[in-house]
């Protein structure tokens, strides 16, 4: 259940539209089912009233849409940002990917966004989803109502939420929280403890399901290249589908390297993967290593911060040392 009510968001957005301070609102639009929500541009208060939604399924991170949207118009756009979205927002600003002056950022407090996939796995046919405190009530088409624990249907990124603090906003709706000392690296540690063969087998199994739909890349706020190398027929590495399982690894590993130091751990890659590949674990390994080797660093925590791996200092550890400090598992 979210602390802030939908009406508060609509009222803020309508006020901004009506005053002419912004001419578009980037928000969540209701669909066919309770869990079915699409990112959308709203242009009038009437549209907001009819179709805007704010509930436990508003997981989509809007930061990346700002790159395209701010390029379309000279006018300001209002965007709603959850705490984790604000890190992506800052990171994109650091990379000069959009014009801050064209955005009115409204921070919204977040109590975690549910994973519709987990709810669907528990119910054959859903007619409605509503909440009662820490329970999620699912009305099904054939088996009456099911009561699920909210924590059981939260995705990993929310179970191990790294921050309830908004690191960027023009205005905040609801309360601001704190950076959380989460257990988000526990899964990474488990994988680190595997033998190289076990680890290879683990990723081989996970990545063998990849269908190269590119959803992870296309949703990723750190992937904003105008032309991705994997889409370029002249690059020699364009592979629309992997010819073998090595190519799938190449795509994902190269992508993880490419966003290392810039990935804020927003978790969108794993949210959108149609094959449930825990892609965020690759990125978290990089984040953990950066913390370990260069001191704690959170991408997007501040605008303009220089990631350790693009900031050479003479104190930087040597590659050989990195391998040793990673217990041979770096």
């Amino acid at each position, binding site marked *: 259940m979210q602390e802030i009510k939908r009406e508060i968001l609509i009222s803020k957005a309508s006020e901004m539209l009506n005053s002419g301070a912004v001419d578009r609102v980037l928000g969540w639009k209701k*669909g*066919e*089912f309770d869990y*079915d*929500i*699409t*990112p*959308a*541009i709203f242009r009038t208060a009437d549209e907001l009233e009819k179709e805007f939604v704010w509930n436990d399924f508003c997981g*989509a991170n809007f930061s990346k*849409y700002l790159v395209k949207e701010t390029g379309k118009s000279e006018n300001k756009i209002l965007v709603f940002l959850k705490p984790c979205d604000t890190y992506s927002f800052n990171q994109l600003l650091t990379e000069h990917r959009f014009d801050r002056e064209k955005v009115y950022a409204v921070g919204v407090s977040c109590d975690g966004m549910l994973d519709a996939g987990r709810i*669907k*796995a528990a119910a*054959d*046919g*859903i*007619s409605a989803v509503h909440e009662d405190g820490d329970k999620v009530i699912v009305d099904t*088409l*054939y088996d009456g109502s099911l009561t699920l624990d909210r924590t059981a249907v939260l995705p990993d990124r929310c179970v191990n939420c790294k921050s309830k603090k908004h690191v960027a906003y023009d205005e905040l709706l609801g309360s601001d929280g704190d950076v959380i000392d989460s257990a988000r690296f526990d899964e990474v540690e488990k994988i680190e403890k595997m033998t190289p063969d076990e680890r290879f087998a683990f990723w081989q199994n996970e990545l063998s*399901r990849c*269908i*190269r*739909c*590119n*959803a992870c*890349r*296309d*949703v990723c706020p750190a992937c904003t290249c105008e*032309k991705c190398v994997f*889409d*370029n*027929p002249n690059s020699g590495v*364009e*592979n*629309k*589908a*992997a*010819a073998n399982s090595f190519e799938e690894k190449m795509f994902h590993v190269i992508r993880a390297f490419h966003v290392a130091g810039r990935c804020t751990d927003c978790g969108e890659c794993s*949210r*959108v993967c*149609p*094959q*449930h*590949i825990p892609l965020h674990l690759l990125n978290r390994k990089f984040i953990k290593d950066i913390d370990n080797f260069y001191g704690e660093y959170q991408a997007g925590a501040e605008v303009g911060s220089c990631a350790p791996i693009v900031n050479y200092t003479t104190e930087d550890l040597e590659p050989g040392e990195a391998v040793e400090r990673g217990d041979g598992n770096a």
Partner: protein
Amino acid sequence: MRKVSLDKLDLLFSAISGAGTLYIPVDTEAGSKYEKWESGKTLSNALNTVRSAKDFFFPQTENLMDFKMEGKSIEVIDTRSECEDFVIFGVRACDVKSFEVLDRVFLADPVDSYYKNRRDHAVIVSMACTKPRETCFCGTFGIDAANPDGDVVCYKTDDMLYMDAKTEKGAKLLEKLASVTEESDDTAVNEQKKVIAERLAKLPLAELSAEAFGSGKTSVFFDAPEWKELSESCLGCGTCTFVCPTCQCYDIKDFNTGHGVKRFRCWDSCMYSEFTKMSAGQPRLTQLERFRQRFMHKLVYYPTNNDGLFSCVGCGRCLEKCPIQMNIVKVMKKLGGSIK
């Protein structure tokens, strides 16, 4: 009609696999998927597999031929291996219909011999849907989830699996299974069909109509202003096209292995920026045009070229998997509703 007790499914599967390699939907940590049956593997209870059954006939990648160069001569090597008979068990009505959509593309002149080879060797054992989901809308395209096509059609009750042959191929398979199945009347099956019909009528998308679309409607929808809003938040990924049972676009590429050249075919997606790029450039410059292409193909172009047959079967996979939850149902409601 034949029947077999559900606690003897292992025996049944063992008998089927005697007739050809058997694939059944099984549960995995990432949802239901088809796997080669071996003793101990149990049938998934999920309504459908995450990936569609088209993979059996139109795999994501396939090697078409090899070339070997020596001096100035090029040897062309046919890499095809003769396909063996196989049985796909538990295919839902929507996916069975998708084979007809694919057949009209791959079996039309010139026949795609790679595809045909696999089609010829397959026996389709379909399964009626006892619990269709909220995302199902096969009825919109005239498909009846209670009466799937296929070589053999199955009905699963609480304790029994009923099997009925629909084609000669199917009758032959059932003959081979005579020792593990017994003769049955169709009382239980008729009862189940009635229950399914009632359930289908109550589905949230039961009223969705494709009437506004179809053959010859290109000019009606092509320039519709709604495409802008519909495509606005599309990420341009290929999820919808890759989980879709009827999407059939592919690319053919040559790959230099260092020892020769492999020519392979892989799935392609109209959602991708380089799709059908030509010497003159990319014909669809923005995501709006790419997005429009996909839905116009399903709802207008394909029917125009195929006697009015739609190339959507209402399986609901795109509703389940689109990262931004935009899909053909929303497109149809938005566009169909705007046509007076």
